[in-house]
């Protein structure tokens, strides 16, 4: 097994799918010769040519919309939004068109598009290069939203997303791109969309999270292990639709649940996770469900002190787990 970075996993998944299936192509801003701002598409233009790796004008609505049209008529586009923050002009196409294509066409038309976008903070990107946008879409049946935490999950899930017969939003944490490394099998594999994954077995506290925050939770859990607090960690991986069964099982196991997201708390998808637990696990709970999230401000500020305060980290999670353990 090779150890690769999160972004290498993104790149490898696209390369393999492009090699396998001629219908797969990439479109987005600077994805061609430049290989993307974060180098997610590096080498693909050189390998597959300009017919299959398309540099687009700055026109996010059209990147999504053209991709959706191509998908409806038989291609498998992978559209890149340069930053998740830039997806806003494309929201109409994604929600009004991609999500509803199958339902409104009596299942005649499908929309097998994958839309990738780097989200999240921690790279000093300030207001418009740091946002978490998942909860804008996690209320829209017809869409699937994948937010992986490890290179293994990235590769397996991105391949599944590209192969999927429905539109998938694939949000990659940009701070994880080079920070997070992990083992990936040499042989081909895919992972199922819609399935959460237990990243650590534990007995006392359940932490449910996704993306970069998952790693912070793992770090906190490791530290607390020495103090005799055993943490069970569930990685949602697909944040819409949620894996209810896995959530119920993980919450019931310990009876004390901490939900962690970088997004701001009110209206984040953790509210939905919490509701699932409230509906199904009332008599298994030993403490109120806790949410640890970003502050209620419009976007991540620029000043280093403020960004640091905003960002999730292992210390915040450790404190929250400890408090829950003492409840």
């Amino acid at each position, binding site marked *: 097994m090779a150890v690769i970075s999160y972004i290498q996993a993104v790149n490898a998944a696209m390369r393999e799918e492009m090699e396998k299936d001629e219908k797969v192509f990439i479109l987005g801003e600077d994805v061609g010769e*430049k290989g993307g701002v974060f180098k997610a598409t590096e080498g693909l233009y050189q390998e597959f040519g300009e017919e299959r790796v398309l540099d687009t*004008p*700055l*026109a996010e609505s059209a990147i999504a919309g053209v991709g959706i049209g191509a998908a409806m008529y038989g291609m498998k586009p992978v559209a890149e939004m340069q930053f998740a923050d830039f997806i806003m002009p494309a929201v109409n196409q994604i929600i009004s068109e991609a999500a509803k294509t199958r339902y409104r066409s009596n299942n005649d038309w499908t929309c097998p598009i994958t839309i990738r976008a780097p989200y999240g903070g921690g790279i000093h990107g300030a207001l418009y290069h740091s946002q978490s946008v998942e909860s804008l879409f996690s209320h829209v049946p017809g869409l699937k939203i994948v937010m992986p935490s490890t290179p293994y999950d990235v590769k397996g899930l991105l391949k599944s997303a590209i192969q999927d017969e429905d539109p998938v939003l694939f949000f990659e944490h940009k701070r994880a791109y080079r920070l997070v490394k992990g083992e990936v099998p040499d042989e081909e594999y895919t992972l199922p969309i819609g399935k959460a994954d237990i990243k650590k077995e534990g007995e006392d506290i359940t932490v449910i999270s996704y993306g970069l925050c998952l790693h912070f939770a793992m770090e906190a859990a490791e530290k607390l292990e020495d103090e005799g607090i055993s943490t069970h960690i569930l990685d949602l991986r697909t944040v819409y639709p949620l894996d209810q069964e896995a959530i119920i099982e993980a919450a019931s196991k310990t009876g004390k649940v901490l939900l962690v997201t970088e997004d701001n708390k009110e209206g984040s998808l953790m509210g939905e996770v919490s509701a699932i637990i409230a509906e199904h696990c009332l008599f298994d709970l030993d403490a109120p469900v806790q949410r640890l999230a970003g502050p209620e401000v419009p976007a991540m*500020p*620029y*000043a280093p*002190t403020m960004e640091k*305060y905003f960002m999730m980290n292992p210390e915040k999670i450790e404190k929250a787990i400890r408090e829950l353990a003492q409840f």
Partner: protein
Amino acid sequence: MLNSVQLYPEKSNDELLSLLKEMWTIRFFDEKVDEFFAKGMIHGTTHLCVGQEVTATGPCAVIKEEDKITSTHRGHGHCIAKGADINRMMAELFGRSTGYCKGKGGSMHIADVEKGNLGANGIVGGGIPLATGAALTSKMKQKDEVILSYFGDGAANEGSFHESLNIASIWNLPVIFICENNQYGMSGSVKEMVNIEHIADRATAYGIPGKVVDGNDLIEVMNETHEAVKHARDGKGPVLIEAKTYRWKGHSKSDARKYRTREEEQAWKEADGIKRFRDLLISEEIVTEEAADNLRKEAKQEVEDAVKYAEDSPEPSIDTLMEDVYA
């Protein structure tokens, strides 16, 4: 007063010299920012307008103080040209509490209500509808103010550009759309992203005048903007001006500029608009070489002073993170 060329509006010798100094200030400001980014003393990312000083200074030099502008992610020059205090600008880039956005915004988000700058903008094309809306206010309140909307060639492919031009045209709004065509939207050459020679030609589609100007010729930029402003102030509606220019540096700090040749860069540098205006003032005997050098040194020193101001300013307190979300 200039003799060899006609300049509208007429400017006194002192005013001409202050325009020259302002362009130097813009250049030195961004060169200093570049230096500090390279040293890791300013973090995040930044977009420098070195080489585009004329298109920042020229249009702002023909409007009144109460007129407004909207700016872009590459906005330091626009801010300075509209009268911003470079101390507070530099402090913002350092993420300090004395900055224009109290450290929350950074490079891409400098707004200055006092000077009529509605703001730089981290979203490409984000400011164009705002300028159009400000022009609507001006018209509704019969304010006799015009709005300058700066944006780049990349933004001219966003829907917001097309939607705004149409609305400004049908409602006859006093807005001047200034496209700084610096030849590249990140790695995307305008030759590949636009299938017409001049972006200004798009004006025809919206029934408004479109002008192409040499973005390194301050006199031409000012004269054409002056005419456009007069047109708008007379109630004849919007104008689109396309200034051909060039950003000498990369798109942002992480850009190796592989998509263009060093020869092309050199050719544009030789057409430097600041040098051209300086030479004009010397040949007209408005300034001696020595006095011009002194002016240049003054501008450089003021930028150094701004750095000192920024370095001496306190970091914002965490409490301020939650401020300014609602009224």
